[in-house]
């Protein structure tokens, strides 16, 4: 079965072509891309702006520094190694725990230092990176996710993606790792996308492999109607992200740490469109609503308030969102 063009239009679905031509090209100046494409830069900027980020233990930017990797990891129990300019969750290696010289991935498989070095060398050679020949490898704090996710996440860290348009959060989704996604939170790799009510932070329906689901496929726990803690802070962080990234159409990825609360993970200048499926709702009307406002407030708080005013929704009896525009 396929949808008709008029049906997609009526649902306000934003297509890839229009996203690129009408939002990314005009609203995201090319010169600001390096800030979001290089996660070390993003992290520094976010930190300067007073936002919480996963701590950076070290950066490896050349092959001869690989020798120092062992020392760097010496005192760490868990860590994440990822390419500074990676895309689509590629090239991320997670070590969850260690015993003596061996590390363990979230799925329990063993990592020795040579495997880690090989992976890091691959990152340096640019294998996972956006059109870059060379890259840096970041070694950072492995987030301990909030207990609320314990039952609906499988071997990985769930993250929250918020689409922010001109500084106004417009749509959000929770991404849950699965066995299929091997702990990664990217939808095309098999993670679950859960629509999140942008006003309240309550989970709506979910999609997995492009199909609607109601329970986590690995843990069988229900996904709907979970209220994410600290939602207002998440929205504030997302709205603020636009200010430091200088990109008006931005995807902000935030993780919830059980001890440290919401932390900025990364920004995305070309956020994907699957968020619409997770929310069963098109992006176009919301983006146009923001577009139609002549003067948007400068204060971050006021823009978050605007989100709640514009996209106020009521939960009906079934728990699914009834949007009022």
């Amino acid at each position, binding site marked *: 079965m*396929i949808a008709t063009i008029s049906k997609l239009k009526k649902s306000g679905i934003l297509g890839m072509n229009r996203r690129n*031509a*009408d939002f990314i090209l005009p609203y995201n100046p090319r010169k600001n891309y390096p800030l979001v494409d290089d996660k070390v830069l993003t992290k520094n900027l976010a930190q300067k702006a007073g936002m919480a980020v996963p701590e950076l233990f070290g950066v490896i930017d050349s092959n001869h520094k690989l020798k120092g990797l062992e020392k760097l990891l010496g005192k760490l129990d868990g860590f994440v190694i990822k390419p500074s300019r990676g895309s689509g969750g*590629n090239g991320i290696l997670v070590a969850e725990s260690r015993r003596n010289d061996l590390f363990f991935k979230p799925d329990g498989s063993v990592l020795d230092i040579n495997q880690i070095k090989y992976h890091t060398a691959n990152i340096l050679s640019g294998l996972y990176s956006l059109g870059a020949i060379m890259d840096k490898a970041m070694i950072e704090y492995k987030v301990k996710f909030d207990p609320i996710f314990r039952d609906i996440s499988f071997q990985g860290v769930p993250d929250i993606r918020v689409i922010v348009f001109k500084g106004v959060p417009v749509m959000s989704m929770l991404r849950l790792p699965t066995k299929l996604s091997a702990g990664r939170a990217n939808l095309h790799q098999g993670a679950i996308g859960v629509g999140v009510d942008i006003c309240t932070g309550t989970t709506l329906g979910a999609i997995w492999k492009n199909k609607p689901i109601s329970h986590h496929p690995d843990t069988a726990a229900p996904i709907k109607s979970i209220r994410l803690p600290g939602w207002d802070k998440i929205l504030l962080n997302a709205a603020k992200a636009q200010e430091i990234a200088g990109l008006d159409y931005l995807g902000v990825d935030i993780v919830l740490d059980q001890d440290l609360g919401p932390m900025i993970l990364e920004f995305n200048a070309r956020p994907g469109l699957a968020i619409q499926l997770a929310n069963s709702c098109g992006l176009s009307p919301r983006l146009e609503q923001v577009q139609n406002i002549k003067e948007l407030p400068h204060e971050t708080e006021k823009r978050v308030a605007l989100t709640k005013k514009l996209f106020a929704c009521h939960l009906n009896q079934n728990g699914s969102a009834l949007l009022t525009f």
Partner: protein
Amino acid sequence: MIRNNRGTIIIVLLITSFAGVIFFYKVHKLGLPLTPDQQVDLWNVEARITFDSPPGPAQVRSAIPLRPMGFQIMGEDFISGSYGLSIQSDEHNRYAHWTVRRVRGSQALYYRVQLRRVTEGSMPGNENIPLPPMVPDYGEMEKAAAMAILEEARRSSADVATFVRQFLERFNDSNPSENYRFFLRQASTPMEKIHIQMHILAGARVPSRVIQGVLLADGKRFLEITPWLQVHNGKKWLSFNPDTSEQGLPENFLIWSIGEEPMVSAQGVGNVNINFSSSIISENMLRLIADFPLQNSSFLLNYSFLDLPLHTQNLYKLLLLIPLGALLVVFSRNVIGIPTFGTFMPVLIALSFKETNLLVGIILFLVIVTMGLALRSVLDKMRLLLIPRLASVLILVIMIMAAISIISHKLGIPSGLSAAMFPMVILAMTIERMSVVWEESGPADAIGQGLGSLAVAIVAFGIFKNNLLEHLFFVFPELVLVVLAICLLLGRYTGYRASELIRFRTI
């Protein structure tokens, strides 16, 4: 889609109309063929000169066409046997001289010419305007008759053309007046008749001359030499039928020589005769244009691919189709939404399919990529750095290609040899990308993108293999601008991709 697109649309319209104007000019004015096998009719005219020669040397001179009005000479040849041949030309005519030192008996010489009918072809513009002739020394009676004739014609005419027509009408009247009858007595042959007409017209100081030619007819032999009267009106030569006063040459009248001189003259031989036959032959139009640019050749033809050396031409025949391949990729990805490895990889694969043929190409592609992936997975275990690994994959691809060529040759399968035609760097990159996608997003994505690339490559192959498209883009390279315009338009296409209708079907 209309928003902010005015600039793009204006540029697109400008480009398209510019290309369109050139295209229509080339089709309608220059007559370039729209299909590769369009034929054009050529007249093949043969002059056969026969004579009897007593023993000894012989010399024959024959007029041959120089710049016949309404025709373009596409080729000519002489069959001269043991005769020496030289060609001379003066302002109006060209002559073939055949000479031989010793010959006897009846002889035959041939001249053959291929002519193309051209519509706008007229007398060359650089011809000098002739001086008005002196009034001839008419005898007393003759003068009175001539002046009366001319005065009468002048009274009922507005310009040179009507003047000559009036004169010729009365000249050819079945019951001519007394003045005409005075002259008509002297006219027994057609040539003499025109001579007299010219003689009278000279009294009005109107420049005139005789042209001799043949009226071509398909499959006709023994065509008659017909003399025709031409009068200059101060701007150009006008032709008149000396027998009917009708103005203008018949459509297929081929001017052979200008002037009263006989077409053939000979020394030392007798019984000289010239015979014409004509027929229509078909020729490939494009080859003709390439070999014989029009006399008043256009800039567009002089600066075209048709002028390049043949092997460069063949290269451009293919290169000019690549924009279409690129357009196909744009369409596949942005309108349909087919995933492919690398943006233009399918185009390059399609180019190699053109060398290997489709089925063999697909099989070779699948074999090379599958083997490459298998070997790549072994490399993966060795944990090589990216660039050395890419280099290794490239080397493996070349070895696979070489092995396929050698083994298939031994097995007597000649098509395996064409494995060498594949772009190995592209294949190596494809294998590398595919194995990364395989690892990152699973085999479904990898195989899906691989098949997507192959599908686009197959369609691109269809384009590259199409003779009509090859012909059109080669002869009308301005069509590339149209492709560019479509690409620009698609660059502002913000509608849904067909794949999104499936992706968002659950909405």
